């Protein structure tokens, strides 16, 4: 099996799975009906995308593993999502800031992935980028609405930006598998997206009358399988059914 390609697909896909799971937690618990529906619809988009990636990864692996095995049966250290997407839904400000910080990246990333020499990744990226442009509209809209809202909503948004900012730099870190795939024209060199990423974010932050956090220290580890303390809880809920009733089907 092409192990760099397999690892690269997981690196892209796991972000969608874990963020989709976080958003899914809000099903029936959103702050109001509309945001509840929006978050779960975005979650559904991400799960749809992740299925395409995992089906491809299973094919690349070339053994008996299925998309479900990859999603449900890996231990914690084998998930390679960025730390940002596993952060909890502390309040709606955290949920929407996390979403926005990921959406901007995801949007820029998928635009570039459409140039991949790998046909399957190219096709998934084309399909997904249409969906993600709606996610980005939704989250940007809420950043402005709440940042430029009441004193309380403003403070909560600023607090969420300050807390989550340290997880943004990791989006642009590259693993050995990433570098290998970049050299073959398959992967996106995310280092090239960093400038545009922060400039889009700063623009929205300013429009929302918020302040861009000034931080020198960034947290990393997710891409190497070293996760924050929240991850184990997320995974136990995600995997519970398959662990308790192996091979159970819906």
């Amino acid at each position, binding site marked *: 099996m092409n192990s760099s390609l397999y690892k690269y697909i997981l690196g892209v896909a796991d972000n969608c799975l874990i963020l989709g799971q976080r958003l899914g937690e809000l099903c029936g618990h959103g702050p109001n009906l509309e945001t509840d529906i929006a978050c779960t619809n975005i979650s559904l988009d991400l799960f749809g995308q992740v299925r395409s990636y995992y089906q491809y990864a299973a094919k690349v692996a070339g053994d008996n593993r299925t998309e479900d095995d990859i999603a449900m049966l890996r231990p914690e250290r084998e998930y390679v999502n960025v730390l940002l997407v596993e952060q909890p839904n502390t309040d709606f400000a955290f949920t929407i800031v996390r979403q926005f910080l990921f959406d901007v990246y995801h949007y820029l990333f998928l635009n570039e992935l459409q140039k991949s020499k790998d*046909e399957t990744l190219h096709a998934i990226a*084309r399909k997904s980028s249409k969906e993600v442009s709606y996610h980005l509209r939704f989250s940007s809209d809420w950043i402005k609405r709440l940042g430029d809202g009441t004193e309380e909503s403003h403070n909560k948004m600023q607090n969420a930006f300050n807390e989550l900012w340290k997880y943004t730099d990791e989006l642009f870190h590259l693993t050995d598998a990433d570098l290998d795939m970049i050299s073959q024209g398959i992967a996106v060199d995310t280092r090239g997206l960093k400038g545009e990423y922060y400039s889009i974010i700063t623009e929205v932050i300013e429009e929302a009358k918020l302040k861009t956090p000034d931080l020198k220290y960034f947290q990393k580890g997710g891409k190497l399988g070293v996760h924050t303390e929240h991850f184990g809880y997320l995974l136990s809920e995600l995997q519970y059914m398959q662990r308790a009733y192996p091979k159970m089907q819906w």
Partner: protein
Amino acid sequence: MAILELNIDKRLKPILEKVSDPEIPVLSILQMGVVRSAHLFDGKVIVKITPTYSGCPAMDVIGEDINKAMEENGYKSKVELVLSPAWTTDWITEKGRNALAKYGIAPPLDALADKAALLDNKKIVKCTNCGSTNTIVVSQFGSTACKALFKCEDCKEPFDYFKCLK
């Protein structure tokens, strides 16, 4: 659209016309532009379909419904999912758009108008109940990922708008 129609075997077309989208039962999967091709190979039917949205839960049901409809007509069939080229709302046929409006879902506007309606709150989406364009967005996501929720300020009726996907 014309190119897509050419890829559907004439013998299979009447069968596929009777298979509907489970989320929007007034629309056949052909009007929806979900069927990419349908051919007969050695007595076996191969139908290629494409998802509207990646996570669309209707795709599995559509696949099963196609197989069932083919079986009822004496064909063995296999449904394959293709992602490229990606589905766009432009593939919904004129008949399909009319059926949507009649069912209570405002059909998609072009990309620019769509953005103006959803983001800048321009009043251009026509109410499916009274026809007024005095309408506002309630939520960018509606009952399914492909729709947004609108409300008519004149007749006060809420309705779905099928978002433009390009």
